[in-house]
């Protein structure tokens, strides 16, 4: 019998605040079968592109497809790794340089599982979730970001 999980809402309007991360960590302190957490945070870089500095990224997504893609990534991660918990949040809308746009949090009894799971999830999201990013400069011109 496999546990059926519904797609969770992973999208957050604007930046992910550090307090959200603290709250999420605190919620896991009742789960005393956890020995290790690995947290990945994506942060907006103020890259220089052709002499102009990126001040923000404006994220949009094909939301239903992205939610489904991330749901499948979540299921695959639970299948591959022996995890206790998993949380994934991604920003939509404008996120300023220095702010956090991606929060992936996995927990397991032992460190190996969560290390590998977090990395797997981040790579999968980057390649499979239809999320789009407009790098906005100070003068409000922009270029489109592309994952490599």
């Amino acid at each position, binding site marked *: 019998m496999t546990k059926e999980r519904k797609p969770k809402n992973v999208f957050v309007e604007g930046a992910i605040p550090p307090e959200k991360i603290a709250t999420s960590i605190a919620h896991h302190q009742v789960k005393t079968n956890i020995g290790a957490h690995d947290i990945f945070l994506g942060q907006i870089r103020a890259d220089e592109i052709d002499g102009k500095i990126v001040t923000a990224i404006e994220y949009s997504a094909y939301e239903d497809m992205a939610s489904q893609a991330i749901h499948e990534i979540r299921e695959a991660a639970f299948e591959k790794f022996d995890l206790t918990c998993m949380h994934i949040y991604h920003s939509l809308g404008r996120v300023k340089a220095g702010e956090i746009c991606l929060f992936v949090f996995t927990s397991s009894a032992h460190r190996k599982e969560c290390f590998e799971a977090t990395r797997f999830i981040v790579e999968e999201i980057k390649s499979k979730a239809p999320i789009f990013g407009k790098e906005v400069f100070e003068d409000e011109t922009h270029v489109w970001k*592309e994952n490599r």
Partner: protein
Amino acid sequence: MKLTINYFGMIAEAVGSSKADFELHGKTVSDLKNELENTFPDLLGMSYQIAVNQKLVSSETEIMEQDEIAVLPPFAGG
């Protein structure tokens, strides 16, 4: 057949809309791409993928009247 197409990111910018009707004369994804590029020549230089009912599909896939069609530029999540 008449389709409603969703455009995202730089593609939406290039076609000037995020959702619009489109009259498809052919029937495959390959036909759709050709017809889109005729209508919006800016697409010719751009990299994009077609999703049918929220799945990425190959050029040979046949499109049905009620399908949910989306034109997706390169992903940039994370």
